């Protein structure tokens, strides 16, 4: 026999939606400590990329120009520049021994012309330029840093590491509840639906920031000195991009029943490809604005940003405004949609 309770539970203390909202934020944060399948995929890719970056950084050539090999040859730029000096050019070579002596074949315009002194003087002057340039510390540092920035920060990090981490965590805020059919427990609480959406977003955002920026830090720290520069210079762009992507994927998780599939398609066909396209279509991608922020930060520090291959970047103010507006706008749209949507995942 059940115990009898003639008095019903007291109504003296009315529930507070503010407390409910705060508890839901904390609840959402706690429920996300586990790394889900997509999180492991992102971790795996990050581990792979970090390893590659670390190997490149530790290699003799590293990210710098002098010890990189010239295309389709076995000699480095440093060796090639030295080879263009008069002392090397006047060295009598057996062209059949080019491979064994590790020298590049001499092009016709590189060959000495002692019988035409004027031409030879000009030729010597011009062909000395590469060697002189390779002696310039600012040039070499700028070149190496831009190479690292272009491939690791703009392409790898903004291209897929950050989108995958935010997709894994932000889309699961509501998507995982739908998948586990436990959303009903939240939807039956006396809380406005828009507040449920917002609380889930705010509760998940710390994880998105932790993993998004953690991936950023891991990539930077594996990149040696250039990585440390990138960490100090690009972190604001990384933060802005992480929050904006989180807003996108939180919305995707609330709207689509298969958010991971939709998110991956969005990342690779929209953020990765469209952001690289010239023309105005790239203005629709969030990555473009994050790239613009990085571009402007590097330009302000005096680096040769033309090597970053960012087509028609917008100003930093515009990029901040667009990323901020996208975050707020997408969150508001999500709150509006969520407040109007019926969820029948348990049916």
């Amino acid at each position, binding site marked *: 026999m059940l115990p009898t309770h003639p008095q019903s539970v007291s109504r003296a203390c009315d529930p507070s939606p503010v407390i409910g909202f705060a508890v839901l934020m904390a609840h959402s944060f706690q429920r996300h400590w586990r790394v889900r399948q997509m999180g492991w995929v992102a971790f795996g890719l990050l581990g792979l990329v970090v390893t590659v970056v670390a190997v490149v950084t530790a290699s003799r050539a590293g990210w710098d120009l002098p010890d990189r090999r010239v295309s389709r040859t076995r000699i480095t730029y440093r060796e090639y520049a030295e080879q263009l000096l008069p002392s090397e050019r006047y060295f009598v070579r057996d062209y059949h021994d080019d491979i064994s002596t590790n020298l590049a074949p001499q092009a016709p315009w590189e060959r000495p012309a002692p019988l035409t002194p004027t031409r030879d003087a000009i030729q010597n002057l011009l062909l000395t330029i590469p060697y002189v340039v390779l002696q310039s510390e600012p040039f070499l540092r700028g070149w190496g840093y831009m190479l690292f920035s272009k491939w690791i920060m703009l392409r790898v990090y903004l291209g897929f590491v950050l989108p995958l981490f935010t997709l894994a965590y932000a889309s699961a805020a509501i998507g995982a509840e739908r998948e586990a059919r436990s959303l009903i427990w939240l939807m039956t609480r006396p*809380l406005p639906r828009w507040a449920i959406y917002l609380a889930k977003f705010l509760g998940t955002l710390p994880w998105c920031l932790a993993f998004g920026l953690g991936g950023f830090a891991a990539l930077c720290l594996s990149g040696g000195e250039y990585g440390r520069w990138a960490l100090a210079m690009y972190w604001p762009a990384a933060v802005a991009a992480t929050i904006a992507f989180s807003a996108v994927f939180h919305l995707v998780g609330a709207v689509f029943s298969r958010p991971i599939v939709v998110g991956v398609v969005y990342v690779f066909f929209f953020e990765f490809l469209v952001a690289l396209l010239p023309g105005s279509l790239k203005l629709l991608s969030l990555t473009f604005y994050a790239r613009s922020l990085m571009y402007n930060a590097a330009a302000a520090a005096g680096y040769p940003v033309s090597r970053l291959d960012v087509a028609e970047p917008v100003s930093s103010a515009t990029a901040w405004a667009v990323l901020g507006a996208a975050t707020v706008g997408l969150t508001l749209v999500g709150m509006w949609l969520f407040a109007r949507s019926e969820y029948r995942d348990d049916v």
Partner: protein
Amino acid sequence: MPPADTSLAANAPSGAEGARRAPLPSPTAAPPPTPDPPLLLFEQVSKWYGTVLALNQVTLELTGGITGLVGANGAGKSTLLRMANGQLKPTLGRVTIRGLDAWDWRARRRVGYCPDLDAFYEDLSGRQFVWTLARLCGYTRAEATERTERVLERVGMRERANRTLRGYSKGMRQRIKLAQALLHDPELLILDEPLSGIDPIGRQELLELFQQLASQGKCLLISSHELEALEKLTNHVAIMARGRIAAVGTLRQIRDLLEDYPLSVRIDVDQPRELARAVLALAEVQAVSLASGDTPGLVVQARHPKRFFQAFGRLVVEQHVEVHRVEPLDESAHAILGYLLGGSGRT
């Protein structure tokens, strides 16, 4: 058994229960206070899922007591319950809780919902789960703890609530679901298949709990396939078929309305043949047969049960017939459902 205070569905057979008539106001008296809006009111509610009509112009009003909701699979029971709980919006019509739109989050303060689904946060213990949902309702820690302990005791789970949910039996999970529905002391409890998977002893305990809750003034709307259990709990049912409420009221009232289906009544007497001759003379009687079994008696099939019983009573008095037992054979929920749904009555 607490009587259910329920007015008729507009699309149900009329006369099952009379509408309450308000007293005429005295010209000198102060205007009477405005009565509370009904606890749950469906007004001409229809719901489409794409091209499928799930609910068809349903009108239903509940103000108290226990109402059983029965019907075949796909009849629209779950849709109706989820609309009452604000999880679904009507395509047409309106659902209100004490005058508030059921979709409004404030309406959920008055409603406790025990869903049919079996999805929890499996890593939590029963106590943690209920406490978390109490906190999500917006209660302080102390209040949530107090309410959690009360409802756990109420459903008989206080001693067993520290085990993780994934180790619970079906019956224990049902009790936890019921506990969370009681947390905020709602006026209206919507229970979707609450007896499913519960052993006979547990079922009896829950039936007693439902009766206690009803006796405390709560309104219970219970959907169940367990017609025998529902009959023990309440004789007030709403029968759904093909998205409509086919009938609502007490089983007797509904049975009386089924004039096309003659009522079968077994009458045990010492001289059944003599009584059969006399009974056949009554206008309401359609057929008479001798009852099988050890006890002598007859089975009468009569239309207009109320008029038949009046006429039969007069007959018994006039002819001094000694009647040992009178038992309607098809007044059970099964039989009525069978007549209404045109089948066996299986739900």
